[in-house]
C-alpha cells in the first residue's frame, strides 16, 4: 500500500511540477514584458527646471490676502493662547506677553511672566512667516516655540503634564478637542491648535502691500522716497521678503561694536551663538520682521530702544555703516509706517 501511495504521490508531484513550471513560465514572461514597458519617470525630472529668474523683482513681497486654515483650530487655539492655565501659577497666558490688542507684543522692554524676563517679547503677528522662532532662532516651528515660554521658570513656569491635566479637567476643552482631534487633548493637538491660531495672525493688505500690488497712489511721495532710501541704504539686504525680515540671521554690530558701546553684555547678547556655538554666529540674531514695526516698540532683543527713529539710526550706524541723515531716517520711518495692517481675521 505504502509503495503504491508513494508512487501515486510521486506521480502527483511530477504532474504538479509540470503544471507549476508552465504557470511560472507564463508569469515570468508577463512580468518581464511589463517591466520593459515601465520606464523611470524620475530620470527625466532633473531637466524640468522652471524657476523664474527675475533679478529686478522687488525684494519685498505682499502678505497673502488669504491663508487657508482650519477655523475650528484657530478659534480653539485662540482660547488656548489666552488661557492662563498654561502657567504654573495660573496667572500667565501666552497673551500676557503677546497682547493681541497690542500688536502681539507687550510694549515693555523686557517681558514679565511669572517673573521678570531677559528679552523683549517679539510680536506674535506674522510670526508664521519667520524662518525660526525666538531671537536666537532656537525653535524651528511655532509648535516647538511653545515649549520655551511654557517651561521657562520666569515665563510660565509649567510643564506639559501639568497643563494637559488642567486642560483635561475642562469638559468644554475635552469636547472641543474631540471634535477636531481624534486623540483629544494631547501635547501635539494643543500645540497644533495654538500654532494654527498664531499662523492666523497675519496682517495682509498694509498700504505698502497695496502699493506692491500696483496701487501706486496709496503711498505719499515721502513714503515712496522712504522705501527707496530703505533700499538704497541697504536695509533691504536683510529686511526683505514677505515679512520684511524674519527669514535670516545677522550679526548685530557689523560696523562698530554695538554691545561694547551699549555695555553690560549678558549671555543673551551672544544670540545665535547660544544655539549653534559657531563663532560666526556670535552676536547674531534673527532679523526681525518689520511688519507693524511702528506698533511694536520698544525695539531690539534687549528692548533698549524706545523709538523707531532711534532704532533706524542704530541700524544705519552699526549694520549699514553709513553716516546718519535725519531726513533719510524720517522718510524711512514714514515708509515703515506703511507696513502696518490689521490681523486678517479681525478685518473680516
Amino acid at each position, binding site marked *: 500500500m505504502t509503495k*503504491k501511495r508513494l508512487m501515486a504521490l510521486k506521480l502527483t508531484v511530477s504532474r504538479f511540477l509540470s503544471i507549476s513550471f508552465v504557470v511560472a513560465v507564463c508569469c515570468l514572461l508577463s512580468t518581464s514584458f511589463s517591466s520593459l514597458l515601465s520606464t523611470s519617470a524620475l530620470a527625466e525630472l532633473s531637466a524640468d527646471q522652471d524657476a523664474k529668474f527675475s533679478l529686478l523683482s522687488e525684494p519685498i513681497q505682499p502678505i497673502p490676502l488669504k491663508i487657508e486654515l482650519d477655523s475650528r483650530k484657530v478659534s480653539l487655539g485662540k482660547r488656548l493662547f489666552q488661557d492662563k492655565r498654561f502657567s504654573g501659577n495660573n496667572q500667565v497666558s501666552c497673551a500676557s506677553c503677546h497682547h493681541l490688542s497690542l500688536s502681539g507684543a507687550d510694549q515693555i522692554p523686557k517681558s514679565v511672566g511669572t517673573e521678570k524676563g531677559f528679552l523683549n517679547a517679539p510680536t506674535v503677528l506674522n510670526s508664521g512667516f519667520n524662518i525660526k522662532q525666538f531671537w536666537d532662532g532656537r525653535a524651528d516651528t511655532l509648535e516647538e516655540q511653545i515649549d520655551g515660554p511654557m517651561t521657562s521658570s520666569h515665563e510660565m513656569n509649567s510643564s506639559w503634564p501639568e497643563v494637559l491635566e488642567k486642560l483635561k479637567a475642562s469638559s468644554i476643552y475635552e469636547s472641543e478637542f474631540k471634535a477636531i482631534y481624534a486623540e483629544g487633548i494631547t501635547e501635539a493637538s494643543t500645540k497644533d491648535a495654538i500654532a494654527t491660531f498664531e499662523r492666523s495672525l497675519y496682517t495682509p493688505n498694509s498700504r505698502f502691500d497695496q502699493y506692491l500690488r500696483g496701487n501706486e497712489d496709496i503711498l505719499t511721495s515721502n513714503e515712496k522716497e522712504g522705501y527707496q532710501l530703505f533700499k538704497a541704504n541697504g536695509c533691504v539686504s536683510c529686511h526683505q521678503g514677505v515679512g520684511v525680515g524674519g527669514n535670516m540671521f545677522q550679526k548685530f554690530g557689523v560696523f562698530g561694536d554695538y554691545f561694547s558701546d551699549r555695555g553690560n553684555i549678558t549671555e543673551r547678547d551672544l544670540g545665535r551663538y547660544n544655539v549653534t556655538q559657531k563663532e560666526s554666529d556670535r552676536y547674531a540674531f534673527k532679523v526681525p520682521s518689520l511688519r507693524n514695526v511702528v506698533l511694536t516698540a520698544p525695539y531690539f532683543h534687549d528692548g533698549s530702544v524706545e523709538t523707531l527713529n532711534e532704532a533706524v539710526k542704530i541700524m544705519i550706524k552699526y549694520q549699514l*555703516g553709513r553716516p546718519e541723515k535725519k531726513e533719510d531716517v524720517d522718510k524711512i520711518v514714514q515708509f515703515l509706517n506703511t507696513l502696518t495692517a490689521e490681523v486678517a481675521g479681525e478685518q473680516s
Partner: protein
Amino acid sequence: MMTRKPIIIAAAAGAILVFLGLTAKSRTIDIESHLAYRDQLTAQLQHDLRANQNILNSRYALYSSYDPLVKELEQAQMIQMELGVVPEFLGRKGSQRLSEKLELSSREITNKIEITEEFKSQNSLLKNSLAYLPTLIEKLQQNGQGGQVEQLLGELLDQVLLYTLSADESLVPQINLKIDAVQAVIEGESGGPISDIDIALEHAKIILQNKPQVDQLTQTLLDLPTTTEIRELAQLYEQEYQAAVNRARLFQLGASVWLILLLSSAAYGALMLMQQRRAERKTSELFESITDAFIGVNDQWEITYVNAQAAQMLNQQPQSLVGQSFWTTFPEELGSQAKHHYEEAIAQQSMVTLELEYLAQGRWLEFHLYPGSDGLSVFWQDITPRKQAQNQLAASLNATQQAKEVAESERMNAETERAKAEAERTKAEEASKSKSDFLANMSHELRTPLNTIIGYSEVIEEEAKETGQEDLLEDIQTVRQSGEHLLGLINGILDLAKVESGKMELFLETVSLQSLMKEVTATIRPLVEENGNALVIKQPEDIGNLHADIVKVRQCLLNLLSNANKFTKNGTVTLALSQTEQPDGNWIHFEVSDSGIGMAPEQLEKIFDAFTQADNSTTRNYGGTGLGLSISKNFVDMMGGNITVSSELGKGTTFCICLPQTVLEPAQFPQPTQEGLKAEAVAGVNADRPVKQECPQPNTSSERTGCLILLIDDDANVRQLMQRTLSSRGYQVLVADNGLTGLELAEQHIPDIIILDVVMPKMNGWQVLVQLKADPALSHIPVILQTMLDDGRLGYSLGAAEYLPKPMKKDVLLGILEKYRLNSQGSPSALVVDDTLEARMLLERTLEKQGWNAQSASNGQLALAKLKQTDSLPNLILLDLMMPEMDGFEFIQALHQNEDWSAIPIVVITAQDLTISERQRLEQTVLGIHQKGSIDQQRLLKELQEIVNSAEVSSSTLTQ
C-alpha cells in the same frame, strides 16, 4: 483512515491559509502610496534645484528676497520628513536601506540649510557694502577737491569693482595697498569728512573680506551633493520598489501556483477518492463473489480484507478482523505453523498451493497464496469432500489391491516378487502410455503418405483400365489393397492409442435402433455373402432409440460382425438385438454369434488384448489386425457398457455388447480422460472466462444457489437425464425442447452456461448459436454444443460445403466434382490448397482429368493471394487444414471476411484429427448447416448433395 482524516483536514486548512497568505503578500503594493512617494521625490529634486537657483539669484541680483530660497529649503526639509515615512511594501530590509540613504540626503539638506544661513548673512553684508561703496566714493569725489585721497578712492573703487566681477585674487594685495595709502593720507590730514573716507575703507574691507567668503559659500552650497543624494535616493527607491513589485509578483505567482496546486489536489483527491471508492466497491463485490474464503494481508502482515466466507470460518465479523495481525488472528495450525509457506510465497513472488488440515473443524482446506507487490492474498476452499473421496478411493483401491494381493500370493507366495511385478506393471503402463501418445500424434504423419499411395494407385488403376494395360491392373490393385489394409491397421492402432491415452472422445447422439440395424446390416451383408454365410437379424419390432456414440457402436458391431464372418465359412452369422429393464434404466444388448471355428477357453482370456488373436496362426489364415476386439471393448467400456464373449472350440463364438439405452455423459464415468475432455470442451467455447469460478466443481457448490444451466435439446430422454444429473450436482437447470424456447429462456434468465443440441427440428443448434452470439446480452455465455458430430461433419461446421476424410475415396471426390460441374457454367475451376506437393499434384491431375481448371496454393496465405489476383473466382476450393503460414482454419476465417469469397464452396480435405477445442474455436465463425454423417459413402454423397443444394440456395439468396 480515521487517523488520517484530521491530518487531511489540517493539511487542507494549512494549504488554504498559505494561499491566503500568499495572496495578501501579493497585494501589498499600494500604488497610491507608491505614486505619492515618487511625486515627493520628484518634488524634492525640484526644490533642491530651485534652492540652488535662488542662491545664485540672491548672490548676484541687486535687490532680492530670501523668501523663495527659504521656502524651497523649508519645503525640502518638510518633504524629507515625509519621505521618512517609507511605503510599507518595501519590506523591512528595503525600508532600512532607503532610510539609510534618506538620512544621508537629510544630512546634506540640513547642512545646506545651515550653510545657507551663513550665506545669507554674509551675502547681505557684501551686498550692502557693494551697493554703498560706489555711491559713497562718488559723493566723496564730488565733495572733495580732487586731491590725492579722491584719486586713490577712485582707483580703489575701480579695483574693488573689478575684483568683485573678476574674482581675481591678485587684486586683493593692490586693494589693500590702496586702502593703506588712503589711510596714510587721512592720517596726514585732519578734519573734514574723514569719517566718510573711513567708512568707505570699512566697506572696501568688508567687500574684500566677505566677497571670497560669499563666493566660497555659494560654491559650497552649489557643490553640496544634495541633488546627487536625492537622485540616488530616488534611484534606490525605484530599485526597491521594483524589487517589491517583483516580490509581490512572485507571491502572486506563488499564490496562482498554489491555487492551481490546491485545485488540482482537490480535484485529484476527489478523483482518487472516487476511484478508490469504486475500486473498493468493485473489490469488495469481487471478493464477496469469490466463493473461496479470502483474506488480504499487507506487507506488515496486517489483515486488509476479509470476505464473508473467511470471516465465517474464523467465527468473527469481517470488520473486526481488518487491521489485526494475521498471525495472531489466524488459527495456528493454518497460519503460524505453516509460516514458512507464506514466507516462501512472498520471497519467491510465486503462487503457493498447500493443503492443510484444520483439526478444530475437522476440515481439509486447500490454500492458494498469491503474493502481490504489497502483501499476500490468501484464498482457501474446503476440500474435505474431495479428501474424503480420495481417502475412500484409496481405501477401496487398497481393498482391491489386497484382494489382488491375496490372489497373487496364492499364485506366487512371495511378497517381494509381487512388489516387483507391480513395479514392472507400472513401468509397462507408463511405457504403454507414452507409446499411445506417440501413436496418436503420428496420425497425421502416417495417414498423409498413405493418402498419396492409395490415391495414386487409384489414378493408375483407372488409367490402366482405360489404356487396357490389364497386366498392370492386378499389381496396382494389390498396391491399393495393401495400402487400404495398412490404413485400416493404422486407424485401428490410432483408435486404440487414443483410447488408451485418454484422447478418445464420445459424441452422444440419439438414433433409432432400427435404422442403426439397417445401416449395419446393409454394410456387412456383402461381406457375409462373400464368405457364403447367411446373415440372420433378430430384433423386436418397436425397440426405440439409442442414445450413445453411434459411430462407435456401429464400428463395434461391424467389428464383431466382420470377425464372425471372417472365422465362419458357409455358416450363419447372427445379429440379435434385445432390450432389458434394469434398475438404472433400459439396456440394449447386441448379440453377434457365428457358427465358426470357435475358441478355446485359454484363448478367450486374452481375446480382448490388443494385437492378439485367438491363435498366432490366425492372422496368417484369416488376416485382420487383431485390434478390432480391443478397440470395441474400449469403446463399449467408454460408453458405460460391457462386452462379453462365450465360445466353444469348433462350434462358434458369441459376442454380446451391452449398452445403456441412454449412455450418460462421460463425466459420469470415473475416467480422468473424460474430466479433461469436458473441461476442454467448456474452455474451448469461451477461453476468456474462468469457468472454474463460474461453475465450480459440484462437491464444493452444494451450499450455493449454484450456477444456472440452460439445456436446449429436443430429445425428452436427454433432457430428463441431463436435468437429473446436473441437479444432483447442485446446478440449477432450465430446459427447452426447441431453439426458440431456448432463446426466450436465455433472454429471461441469462444463464451461466448453455448446453445446446445441434440437431433439432424447426430451428437447429447452429441457428440458435448464431442468434445467441448476435445478442450482446447473451453473447458472453459459454455454449457447450451437445452434438454427436464426427470429424466428418466438422467440415460443414467450418462453413465447408463438403467434407472428405483422408484418405479420400476417389469416387466420392468425383461425385462431388460432378455436382459442382452441374452447378457452374462453362469450364469449372477449382483451387487446391494443400501444403503437400504430392497431394496437390494428385488433386490437380484428378481435377484436370475431369475437365476442371485447377489452380493450387501451398498455404492459406498464398491461396488468398491467388484469389486476389484472379479475375474469375474458382467454383470450388479444396482445402487442407494443417498447413504452414496460414492454416485451413485461418484461411476459412479470412475467406469469410470477403463477401465475394464467402460464397465459394469449400471442400475440406484433412488427415488431421481435430480436438474439440479446435472444433469449438471454428464453430464460432460458422453459419453452418449440419447433418449427421454416415460411413455409408453413397448415403454421404446423397446427403452432401442436399446440403450443397441448400447452401447454393442460401448463398444465391444472399448474393441477390
